[in-house]
C-alpha cells in the first residue's frame, strides 16, 4: 500500500457525463428522502406553505380578537399563546424555509450551472429537520403553549415550563438546519460555479444567496447558543438570565438579537435577489449597477451584525451604547438605498411587461421602501422610545416582511413556477391575487402606524382604555381586520392557481419569459442532472438584446429564444431592434 500512496490515478477518458448519477427509483428515494436539490426545494416550499397556513390562521385569530376593544373571542392568556404561535412559525418555519430553503435550493444551483449543491445529504437532513421542529413547536400547545411572544424574553418565558423548553428545542433545531444550509450554500457557490462564471458574472440572486448563507452560517449559531442557554435555564435551572444568582435578562436580549437582527436580512436578502432577477427580465434592460447591487448585499450582511441593539433601546441601555448602534443602523440604509435606486434605474426607460412576477416586484419597491423609511424612524433612539412598544413597530415590521420578503417570495414563486412545473400559472388569477394581496397588506398595516403613534400598545389582548381616549381606534382596528381577509382570499386564490395550473396551465417551454440566466437554458422542469454538459459562461446574464453569453449548452438554443404563446400574453419579449 505504501508503494502506491503517491501514484497518480490513471488518466482515463474523462467526460462531463461521468458525474451524472442515475436518477433514484421508487417513491421514497425520489420524493421523500430525495437528495436532489430541486425536489428538496419543492419540499421546503410545501412545508413552508403548510406552516404559513397555520401561522396565518393564528394571525386572523389576533385580528378577530381585536374586533372589540375588550377582546372579542378569547381570554387574555390564550391571546398571548396565539400571538406567540403566529410570530414564531412565521419567522422560522415559513419565511426562512420559503425564501432560503425553497427558492434558494431550487434556483441557486441551476443559476451557477451546477448539478447539485455541494453536500446533497446534508441538504436532505437540513430539510427534514424543519418539519420535525414544526412538530415540536406545535406540541407546545399541548402543554399550555408559550406565552412570551416570538422573542421569548426571560424572565416571562421562564414561566412557560415544559412549553417554553420545547419552544427552545424547536428553534434550536431550525437553527441547526439553517446553519447547515448556510454552510452548504457557501461551499456550493464558492466552489461549484460553472467554468467562466467569475464572481462578477454570477446572477444577482446568487450573490444574495451567498450573503444570506454567510449570515445563516454565523448568526444562526448565535441564536442556537442563546436558546441553548435559555433551554438550560428552563430544564436545569442554570442561572444565565436569573438576576438573583448573577445572571442577566439583558444578556438574553443581546444574544437573541445578535442573531435575530441578521435574521430579518436572512429573509429579505433572497427577496432582493429575486427582485434583481425579475426587474431586468421584464423591463428588458440590463440591470443597473450590477456591482453595486452585489456588493451592497454583502455590505448589508456585514452591517447586519453590528446593529442588533437597536431592538433594545427601551430595555435601558447606556446612552454611549445606544448612539453607535443608532448610527450603524442608519448606515444600513445606505446599501439598501443603493439597491432601491439601482432597481429604479433598471426599470427606467425599459419596456415593462406587467406580468404577475413583475407586479409583485414593482409592489415590492413601493412597500419595502415604505417599511424601510419607517425603519429609519425606529432606528433613531428618541423616536424609538415612543414607538417601540406600540403598533407602529407592528406596522413597520409587516411592511418590511410582508411587503418585502413575502412580495419578493411571491415574485420568485410566480417567476420560477414555470421552471419548476413546466406550466404557466394562470395570468388572470395571478393578477387578481396580486391586487387582493397588495390592497390587503396596505389596508391592514397602514392604519397600525397611526394607531401606534397615538399610543396603542402592541401585544395587548384588549385596548379598552386606549379606545376610551381614542374612539376612532375601534374603527381602524375593525378596518384592519376586514382588510386582512383580503390577504386570506389572495392566498386561497394562489393555492387554487398553483394546483389548477399544475394540470391546466399552458406549457411553458424552456424560457417563457425570455430571461437569460442559466436555469432558463434547460428544459422545464429541469432533468434530474440539470446540465448534461456543464456550460461555459462568458459574461453577465443581463445584456438583453445581445447573444447569450454561454457555450457548451446541452442543446444549442437560439440566441433569441422564440416567444412562446405564454410570453406573447404581454408585449413581445424581443421586439425588433431591441
Amino acid at each position, binding site marked *: 500500500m505504501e508503494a502506491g500512496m503517491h501514484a497518480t490515478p490513471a488518466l482515463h477518458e474523462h467526460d462531463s457525463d461521468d458525474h451524472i448519477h442515475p436518477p433514484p427509483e421508487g417513491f421514497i428515494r425520489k420524493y421523500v428522502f430525495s437528495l436532489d436539490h430541486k425536489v428538496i426545494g419543492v419540499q421546503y416550499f410545501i412545508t413552508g406553505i403548510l406552516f404559513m397556513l397555520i401561522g396565518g390562521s393564528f394571525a386572523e385569530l389576533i385580528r378577530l380578537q381585536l374586533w372589540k376593544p375588550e377582546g372579542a373571542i378569547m381570554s387574555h392568556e390564550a391571546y398571548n399563546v396565539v400571538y406567540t404561535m403566529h410570530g414564531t412559525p412565521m419567522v422560522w418555519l415559513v419565511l426562512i424555509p420559503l425564501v432560503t430553503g425553497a427558492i434558494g435550493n431550487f434556483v441557486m444551483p441551476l443559476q451557477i450551472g451546477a448539478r447539485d449543491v455541494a453536500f446533497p445529504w446534508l441538504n436532505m437532513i437540513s430539510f427534514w429537520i424543519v418539519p420535525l421542529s414544526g412538530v415540536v413547536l406545535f406540541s407546545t400547545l399541548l402543554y399550555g403553549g408559550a406565552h412570551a411572544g416570538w422573542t421569548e424574553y426571560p424572565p416571562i418565558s421562564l414561566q412557560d415550563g415544559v412549553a417554553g423548553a420545547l419552544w427552545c428545542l424547536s428553534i434550536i433545531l431550525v437553527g441547526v438546519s439553517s446553519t447547515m444550509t448556510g454552510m452548504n450554500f457557501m461551499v456550493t457557490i464558492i466552489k461549484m460555479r460553472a467554468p467562466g462564471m467569475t464572481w462578477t458574472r454570477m446572477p444577482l440572486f446568487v450573490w444574495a444567496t451567498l450573503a444570506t448563507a454567510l449570515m445563516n452560517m454565523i448568526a444562526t449559531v*448565535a441564536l442556537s447558543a442563546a436558546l441553548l442557554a435559555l433551554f438550560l435555564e428552563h430544564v436545569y435551572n442554570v442561572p444565565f438570565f436569573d438576576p438573583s444568582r448573577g445572571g442577566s435578562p439583558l444578556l438574553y436580549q443581546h444574544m437573541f438579537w445578535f442573531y435575530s437582527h441578521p435574521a430579518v436580512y436572512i429573509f429579505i436578502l433572497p427577496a432582493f435577489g429575486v427582485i434583481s432577477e425579475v426587474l431586468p427580465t421584464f423591463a428588458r434592460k440590463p440591470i443597473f449597477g450590477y456591482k453595486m447591487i452585489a456588493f451592497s448585499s454583502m455590505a448589508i450582511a456585514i452591517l447586519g451584525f453590528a446593529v442588533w441593539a437597536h431592538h433594545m433601546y427601551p430595555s435601558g441601555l447606556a446612552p454611549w451604547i445606544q448612539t453607535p448602534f443608532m448610527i450603524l443602523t442608519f448606515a444600513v440604509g445606505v446599501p439598501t438605498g443603493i439597491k432601491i435606486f439601482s432597481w429604479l434605474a433598471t426599470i427606467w426607460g425599459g419596456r415593462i411587461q406587467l406580468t404577475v412576477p413583475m407586479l409583485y416586484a414593482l409592489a415590492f419597491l413601493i412597500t419595502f421602501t415604505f417599511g424601510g423609511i419607517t425603519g429609519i424612524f425606529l432606528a433613531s433612539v428618541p423616536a424609538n422610545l415612543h414607538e417601540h412598544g406600540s403598533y407602529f413597530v407592528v406596522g413597520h415590521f409587516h411592511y418590511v416582511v410582508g411587503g418585502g420578503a413575502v412580495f419578493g417570495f411571491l415574485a420568485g414563486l410566480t417567476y420560477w413556477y414555470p421552471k419548476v412545473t413546466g406550466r404557466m400559472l394562470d395570468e388572470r388569477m395571478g393578477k387578481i391575487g396580486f391586487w387582493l394581496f397588495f390592497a390587503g397588506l396596505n389596508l391592514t398595516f397602514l392604519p397600525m402606524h397611526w394607531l401606534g403613534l397615538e399610543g396603542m400598545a402592541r401585544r395587548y389582548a384588549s385596548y379598552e382604555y386606549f379606545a376610551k381616549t381614542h374612539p376612532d381606534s375601534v374603527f381602524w382596528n375593525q378596518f384592519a381586520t376586514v382588510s386582512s381577509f383580503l390577504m386570506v382570499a389572495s392566498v386561497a386564490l394562489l393555492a387554487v392557481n398553483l394546483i389548477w395550473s399544475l394540470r391546466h396551465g399552458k406549457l411553458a417551454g424552456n424560457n417563457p419569459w425570455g430571461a437569460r440566466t442559466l436555469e432558463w437554458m434547460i428544459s422545464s422542469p429541469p432533468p434530474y442532472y440539470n446540465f448534461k454538459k456543464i456550460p461555459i459562461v462568458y459574461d453577465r446574464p443581463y445584456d438583453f438584446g445581445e447573444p447569450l453569453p454561454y457555450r457548451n449548452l446541452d442543446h444549442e438554443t437560439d440566441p433569441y429564444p422564440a416567444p412562446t404563446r405564454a410570453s406573447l400574453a404581454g408585449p413581445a419579449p424581443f421586439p425588433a431592434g431591441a
Partner: protein
Amino acid sequence: MASAVKPLGLQAVEARYNDVERHYAETRDIRLLGFVFFLISDCVLFASFIFAYMYLRVSAPAWPPFVDGHQLPWFDTAFAALNSVVLFGSGVTMHFALENWKHLNKQKFNAWLLATIVLGIAFLLGQAHEWSLIKTTWQGSSMGASFFTLTGMHGFHVFVGVIYLTVLGFQANRGVYTGSKYFGLTAGTLYWHFVDVIWVALFFLFYLW
C-alpha cells in the same frame, strides 16, 4: 452595453474543466471548505457563550460573585495549567502524526496518533478532577453557570475528538486512506487543533483574566 463575447481564454477554461487531477482536487477542496465552515460555525457557538461569560462578569458588582454572603474563590490556575500542557501536547503529537502520514511513515503515524488519543483521554480525566475542585455549582452562580457550560461543551468536543481520532486510526490501518486521498485525516487534525485553540481562549478567560 458590454460586448457580448469577451476574450476569455476559452482553452484555459476547457483544459481546466477536463483535467481529472484537478477535478479530484476540487472535490477534496469542497469537503475541506465545508469542514472549515463547520468549524467556524462551531467557533461561533463557543464565542456566544464566551460573550455571555464576559458580559455577566463585567456587569457583576463583584467578581468572583457573592453567594449567600460569601465571595467565591478564584479558580485554581496551577492544575489547569498542567492540564493545558497535556492538551497542547496532544496538538503537537497530532501534527507529527499527520506529517508522518504524509511522509508515508505509517508506524510513526500510528505511534503519534496513539499518543494523541492517550493525551486526549488524560486531559478529560484531568478535567473531571478539575470539576471536582470547583467550589460553586452549575446552578449556584453565574460563575458556575458559565464555567461548567463552557468547559462542559469543550470537554464534549474533546470527547468526540477522541472517538473521532480512534475511528480515523482504525480506518487508516484498514486502508481507507491512500495516496493523496487522506481528507479524513486532514479533517481530524483540523478538528483537534480547533479544540486546542478553543481551550486557549477558555484558559485565558477562566484562569488568567
